[in-house]
């Protein structure tokens, strides 16, 4: 029995530490993949310390968690003293208020705070950027406070109240007695509360994810959007270093505590020992140092004479200097030293729209696709461009001017164009099956098919297959397409966007529809992959173009950036990395020959004519598509023909929950009064 227990414990520890071991090993792995070890290197650590962006994010995270911990600890300690002196009933009420952030799921806390900030910021104060550093800090302080209070309260309770009276009898003012006696007594609680708050805050993802805008991100939030490609190994290097740091911190804390315990036991009489005093001073010193560093950082990071240009782009959609390509942003910053580009990414047109509409962000430049541009123009969310600042517009090819989405060329300058086709693995997929979009419905490949995780692209494919217009607003036709998608659901391995890279390159999935440029990227990484364009059934032809949203604060800098990207040489160099086709005349000449000649990137004009563009659809069509798509993913194969009939279960659920809640929570006070 005991032996079994021991073995199980060892196994559980192995289970807990196995994934961390994988990450640590990966930080020394010469290859890019988690799976294959290709030799030992410490190069990733060197990379890490050269990576300005990653270090800034780490700095942001540390700053937020340090500041929020310090504030919450001070604030929480004083409040705990106040709460401690309350009458029991009042105390109980306050404590249940304290418990709200502890018992609520993080997602609810994050959402409710972000709704409050956006509501107050955008609706009431008409701020452009209602989610920023301060909202993030407030959110962190809010969820840190309960940790401090719940750790300090028990210490206050343990404390002998006579101590304080004694101090006052000996001539202390109440304030002095607090600092000389109480504070010392409750110090262990304060320290453990602060440590808990700090670690929770440092690792918090969910709340920060909802509360942070685009201007100030923390490390976990950025890691979440790093799902493209296998993650850069320098992130693993950072993980390893953080692991070591926390490990050392914890060991030190434990050693100090063990020593303190021993002292306490041996002396019995509680006196302020010398080592205790040193310990206290060390703690105070460390806290002060951290505070100083934190505020220094804050001053340093806010003191900037540079203009910040906030660019929001698709993931992996600009050359970043890796694999011998040009670092476009660095080149731009070199040319215009007074501009600092803050670059963030989004996964799909819809998520970009949600970010803009949510009102929490400041963005100066966005690169959405055609139909989304039409929607943004329609909803008056874009600024007209000043073409005097964009002389390079002359390089834009004629066929990308006067488009359906921007007929007067007032709001957008094209960035890339491309097609949507099928990428498949020739090692596993029979060429004979590659006949059209129906490949994605082929039961032979069940569990190996990936599908778009956005309703517009997913519906588009079903519509091409069914011979319906991809721009239909007809409900029956949309339901027909939804039905087709529902049929496919059992075969689908995962609905993905950026995650497609890892899955296809690692050969974990075999077939997926995706954008040609990204497919090309994957084909370069894994030569078993091939691209197919179902030209007979029709396919989506898209243009991504640069626009300046209404919330922009640096229109001129954004226009400089647009102009820079329209230079044929820059555009060509950029395409070498992102593998899309350039709408800029002459850019193709600057591209890598292999890519410039590729049929995947630049299909024949005769094929191109069969491409169809998405058009702007009314809001109710988008909403219907969204909810049908959601339904497919929840209910699997079943898509209801009609809406309605849903109301009763909801009413019953809510009523049940409300009655249960009332039953559980109302009688409690009565119970207590006895």
């Amino acid at each position, binding site marked *: 029995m005991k032996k079994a227990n021991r073995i*199980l414990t060892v196994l*559980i520890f192995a289970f*807990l530490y196995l*994934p*961390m071991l*994988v*990450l640590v090993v990966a930080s020394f792995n010469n290859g890019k993949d*988690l*799976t294959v070890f290709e030799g030992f290197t410490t190069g990733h650590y060197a990379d890490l310390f050269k990576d300005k962006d990653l270090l800034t994010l780490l700095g942001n995270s540390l700053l937020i968690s340090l500041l929020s911990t310090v504030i919450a600890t001070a604030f*929480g300690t*004083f*409040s*705990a*003293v*106040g*709460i401690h002196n*309350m009458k029991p009933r009042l105390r109980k009420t306050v*404590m*249940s208020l304290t418990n*709200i952030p502890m*018992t609520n*799921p993080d*997602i*609810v806390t994050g*959402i409710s705070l972000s*709704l*409050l900030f956006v509501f107050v910021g955008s609706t009431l104060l008409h701020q452009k950027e209602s989610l920023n550093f301060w909202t993030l800090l407030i959110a962190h302080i*809010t969820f840190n*406070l309960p940790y401090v209070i719940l750790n300090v309260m028990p210490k206050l309770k343990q404390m002998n109240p006579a101590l304080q009276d004694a101090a006052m009898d000996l001539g202390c003012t109440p304030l002095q007695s607090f600092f000389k006696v109480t504070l010392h007594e409750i110090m262990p609680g304060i320290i453990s509360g602060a440590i*808990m708050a700090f*670690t929770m805050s*440092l690792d918090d*993802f*969910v709340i920060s994810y909802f509360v942070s805008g685009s201007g100030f991100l923390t490390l976990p939030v950025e*890691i*979440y959007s790093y799902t493209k490609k296998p993650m850069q190994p320098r992130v693993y290097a950072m993980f390893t270093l*953080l692991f070591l740091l926390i*490990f050392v911190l914890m060991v030190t804390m*434990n050693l100090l*505590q*063990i020593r303190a315990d021993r002292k306490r036991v041996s002396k019995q009489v509680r006196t302020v020992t010398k080592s205790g005093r040193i310990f206290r001073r060390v703690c105070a010193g460390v806290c002060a140092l951290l505070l100083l560093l934190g505020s220094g950082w804050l001053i340093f990071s806010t003191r900037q004479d540079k203009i910040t240009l906030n660019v929001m782009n698709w993931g992996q959609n600009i050359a970043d200097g890796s694999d011998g390509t040009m670092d476009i942003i660095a080149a731009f910053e070199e040319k215009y030293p007074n501009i600092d580009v803050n670059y963030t990414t989004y996964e799909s047109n819809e998520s970009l729209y*949600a970010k803009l509409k*949510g009102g929490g962000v400041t963005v100066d430049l966005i690169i959405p696709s055609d139909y989304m541009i039409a929607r943004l123009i329609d909803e008056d969310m874009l600024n007209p461009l000043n073409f005097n600042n964009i002389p390079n517009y002359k390089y834009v090819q004629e066929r990308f001017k006067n488009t359906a989405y921007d007929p007067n060329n007032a709001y957008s300058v094209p960035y890339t164009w491309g097609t949507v086709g099928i990428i498949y693995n020739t090692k596993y997929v029979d060429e004979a099956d590659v006949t059209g979009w129906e490949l994605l419905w082929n039961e032979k490949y069940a569990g190996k098919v990936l599908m778009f995780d956005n309703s517009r692209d997913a519906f588009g494919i079903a519509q091409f297959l069914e011979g319906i217009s991809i721009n239909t607003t007809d409900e029956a036709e949309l339901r027909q397409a939804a039905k087709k998608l529902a049929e496919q659901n*059992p075969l*689908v*391995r*995962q*609905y993905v966007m950026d995650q497609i890279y890892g899955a296809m390159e*690692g*050969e*974990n999935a075999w077939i997926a529809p995706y954008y040609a440029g990204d497919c090309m990227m994957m084909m370069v990484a894994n030569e078993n992959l091939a691209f197919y364009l179902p030209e007979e059934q029709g396919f989506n032809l898209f243009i991504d173009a640069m626009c300046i949203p209404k919330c922009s604060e640096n229109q001129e800098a954004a226009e400089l950036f647009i102009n820079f990207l329209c230079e044929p040489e820059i555009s060509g160099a950029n395409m070498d990395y992102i593998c899309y086709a350039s709408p800029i005349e002459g850019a193709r000449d600057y591209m890598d020959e292999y890519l410039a000649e590729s049929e995947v990137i630049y299909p024949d004009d005769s094929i191109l004519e069969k491409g169809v563009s998405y058009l702007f659809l009314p*809001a109710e069509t988008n909403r219907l598509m969204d909810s049908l798509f*959601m*339904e497919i993913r*929840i209910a699997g194969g079943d898509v209801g023909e009609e809406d309605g009939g849903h109301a009763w*279960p909801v009413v019953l*659920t*809510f009523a049940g929950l*409300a009655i249960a*809640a009332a039953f559980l929570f109302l009688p409690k006070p009565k119970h207590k009064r006895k």
Partner: protein
Amino acid sequence: MKKNKSILLSGPYILWMLIFTLIPLGVMAFYAFTDPDTGKFTLQNLEDLGLFLPSLGTSVWFSLLSAGICLLLGYPVAYFIAHRSPITQKILYMLIMLPMCMSFLLRTLAWVGLLETNGIINVLLGKMGAGTVEVIGTSGAVILGMVYNYLPYMILPLYAIIVKIDNRLIEAAEDLGCNGVQVFGRVILPLSIPGILSGITMVFVPAVSTFYISQKLGGADTMLIGDIIEKQFKTSNNPNMGAALSLLLMLMVLVCTGIMNRFGGEDEEGGVVV
């Protein structure tokens, strides 16, 4: 006099908590009852929730299952730790705490690397001549992710309770003729119920609302309520629907933890801290 004054110290705190916990929940409820386009009062969002009830069911089922598995795995471990020497206890306790402090996003991604069709485990299995196992994209993978991420939340409160059980009680039971199983069933287990309940709550609450784990480890048919809420905010741009869903989730969690507390009796100050 002095006491009354010091109560005032907590004034700013109460104000802060009202502004940043209660009022946001009110704003959320406000969104849940308004129309996304017109901003007028509506019950439509709540009616449309019906579509998502199956997901809520799946989420609850997965998290209860995970909490159960965590309990089965965690109890023996907590028991083991609680019966070591004080120094060993400290070390083991720290080793359980440590993973909680490290990025759960990266640790979950490591599981993707381990479990993928061509992942580390399958490569090793292949070398041993066994076939491959398909784990990613199944419900099992999601539950595994939950158990992995939240197991420490089960072990720590269990340990905190078990370590406090007075050894004399066990000796007394043995003196009165209980065998090992009886001692466990009649003395140790009943005494550790508060730890079990708080452990279950601490696993259940984050698990039922997760979206990262199901997005990375789950497949086409494992859409959890957290996923849907995240999508309403981050892609579908329907914060009103998202707020309605969050409200439902919050109520449900409230009821579940309420039931737990009922069983667990009165916890002096409420709230269990690790």
